[in-house]
């Protein structure tokens, strides 16, 4: 061990060269057909192929060189640092955290509060549409969905692959009740949440006896059933055409955002017409909803029901022998998670002005679950960061038109969002198998808070 940890030692370098060459060969074989050969249609609509050796060479080189560097230099360096740390006996969690680290949550919240104005200031009204709507609102919707799912998956440990069903229930509740009966957003928002919670209970009842993989499959089926009902019940839901012209939310009934009304927000404030005001308003609505979700989650974790959820995740039999009614505990977890999904759904409907079953496919459930797992199950901060990276990342991909220079003019970066998801997942799971924030914050203390060091916990057990 002592000899092999030295950088530049011939053994290490020889090994690095060997591994680098090997990685190059593997990359060559892997990408030969995917990257090296491209098929396209010629003028006569016949399918022909051409080779892209240059691009293939880049892929192979990147693989070989990065493997060489990682084996030869990066890994020995990390090993030496770890060894030095272990020798000095200093735990990784130290008292002196940076200012940013200690006040991260406060900074993040303040940033979110001023974000729309910041963007208005920097890029103006027209540019802000993109930053407030595509980035801000889009990310916050996913943050809220992931936090809602976190209650079911992260806290209660019930793997739910059909979470999008509750999102759909919320969205359609708002869309249908608003277009058929003309109820307002502020009335329907809680109602959608309640309806979604009701469906959560309906789903919960038959699956209470199931756990793990079996539960996952049943919830998956439930998600699909809801979607298929939405598609096929054409009399009410208009099927795949979806429901359009959904009413906008009003400013608590005081000002409307519909053009041509007497109490129009823009007119009332004497502003020039722009849809950006509505977007900014929606941004704050979803931000408030997110804060509500976080607040409820944090409060519930400290209450007996939240503790029961976490205990249920750990050991169901022990829970029962401690007098916990596992049936109602699971049901409340399902219902609470579903309720937040419903809130997010009705918000989604009012923001889009249009809902169709297309928006509630299984992929959405998978994305939300991926965010929860990547962020670290149970950790609100981790999940929020994961949502920013994953959803924000896919939005950023749209902006990367410069990649066309590298990959040719018909390269569309946003098609690669699933690749980004996969890559992020692999990287996070390699380096942080329990997600960004894998450690669980204790909720109860006798005297003072003491950090529970990660070094006390085994991998996969913390």
């Amino acid at each position, binding site marked *: 061990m002592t000899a092999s940890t030295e950088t530049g030692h011939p053994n290490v370098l020889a090994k690095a060269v060997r591994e680098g060459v090997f990685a190059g060969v593997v990359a060559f074989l892997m990408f030969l057909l995917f990257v090296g050969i491209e098929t396209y249609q010629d003028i006569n609509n016949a399918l022909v192929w051409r080779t892209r050796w240059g691009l293939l060479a880049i892929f192979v080189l990147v693989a070989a060189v990065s493997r060489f560097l990682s084996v030869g230099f990066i890994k020995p360096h990390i090993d030496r640092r770890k060894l030095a740390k272990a020798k000095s006996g200093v735990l990784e969690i130290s008292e002196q955290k940076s200012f940013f680290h200690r006040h991260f949550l406060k900074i993040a919240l303040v940033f979110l509060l001023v974000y729309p104005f910041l963007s208005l200031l920097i890029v103006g009204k027209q540019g802000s549409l993109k930053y407030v709507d595509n980035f801000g609102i889009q990310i916050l919707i996913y943050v809220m969905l992931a936090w809602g799912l976190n209650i079911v998956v992260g806290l209660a440990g019930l793997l739910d692959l059909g979470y999008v069903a509750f999102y759909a229930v919320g969205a359609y509740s708002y869309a249908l009740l608003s277009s058929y009966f003309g109820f307002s957003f502020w009335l329907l928002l809680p109602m959608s949440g309640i309806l979604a919670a009701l469906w959560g209970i309906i789903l919960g009842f038959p699956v209470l006896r199931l756990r793990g993989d079996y539960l996952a499959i049943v919830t998956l089926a439930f998600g699909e059933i809801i979607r298929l009902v939405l598609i096929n019940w054409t009399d009410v839901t208009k099927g795949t055409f979806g429901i359009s012209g959904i009413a906008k939310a009003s400013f608590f009934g005081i000002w409307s955002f519909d053009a041509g009304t007497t109490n129009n927000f823009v007119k009332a404030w004497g502003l020039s017409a722009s849809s950006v005001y509505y977007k900014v308003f929606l941004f704050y609505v979803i931000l408030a909803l997110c804060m509500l979700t976080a607040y409820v989650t944090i409060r519930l974790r400290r209450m007996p029901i939240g503790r029961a959820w976490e205990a249920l995740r750990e050991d169901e039999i022990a829970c029962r022998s401690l007098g916990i*009614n596992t049936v109602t505990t699971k049901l409340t977890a399902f219902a609470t998670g579903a309720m937040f999904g419903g809130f997010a759904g009705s918000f989604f409907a009012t923001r889009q002005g249009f809902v169709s079953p297309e928006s509630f496919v299984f992929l959405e459930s998978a994305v939300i679950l991926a965010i929860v797992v990547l962020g670290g199950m149970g950790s609100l901060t981790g999940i929020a960061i994961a949502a920013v990276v994953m959803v924000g990342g896919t939005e950023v991909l749209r902006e990367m038109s410069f990649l066309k220079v590298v990959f040719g003019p018909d390269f569309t970066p946003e098609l690669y969002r699933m690749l980004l998801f996969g890559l992020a997942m692999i990287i996070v799971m390699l380096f942080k198998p329990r997600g960004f924030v894998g450690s669980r914050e*204790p909720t109860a203390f006798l005297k003072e808070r003491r950090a529970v060091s990660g070094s006390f916990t085994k991998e996969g057990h913390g």
Partner: protein
Amino acid sequence: MAAESLLKVQAVETYYGNIRALAGVDVDVNKGEIVSLIGANGAGKSTLMMTICGSPQARSGQVIFDGEDITRLPTHLIARRRIAQSPEGRRIFPRMTVYENLQMGAGLDNLKYFNEDVEKIFTLFPRLKERQMQRGGTLSGGEQQMLSIGRALMARPKLLLLDEPSLGLAPLIVKGIFEAIKKLNQEEGLTVFLVEQNAFAALKLSDRAYVMVNGKVTMSGSGKELLANPEVRAAYLEGGRH
């Protein structure tokens, strides 16, 4: 003085599918006693323990606790009748801290005594106090057993069921745990029903004991009587002595 019965198991038969695990078991536990149940692997000791807790439920016979028939009650309601269990394999919550584990043990109606009860358990098991902020899964086997018993005690039980508290522990630690049980029994009058492989330690501790073979109780008597009984000695003590 006439002993007051706390738990009465009458002619209980329990099945796993078609396999009969308990073939008509009668066991009595009186208030303030330590009663142990010894027997070989697969004799049905743990099954009896779990039948008392209602999972699995007895197919025939009755379990009467404090004058109430609890045979058909769901497990969590049995637990709320203040029958606390330290189950086999300890089953503490590995990712929750010691303190949170204890919190889970206190039922809703006990939360008002919470601080007092926690202090009591920390006095009984000072090791847990040192480790209160540590995650349950990182404790040693003995500490986990202490936590499991401590968690059960948080429910202020009328009856404490212990399933193999000595499993996988060093003799010295077993001694410490058994001493703690004895202390609880003598100072607070806690009734304990104990299932054990470690027959010698269990019999020495107990007021009365039952011997179980193949789903049936074959012998019963005071701890001393059974310790002196040649059959018991041959089957469970010689060779297995600590």
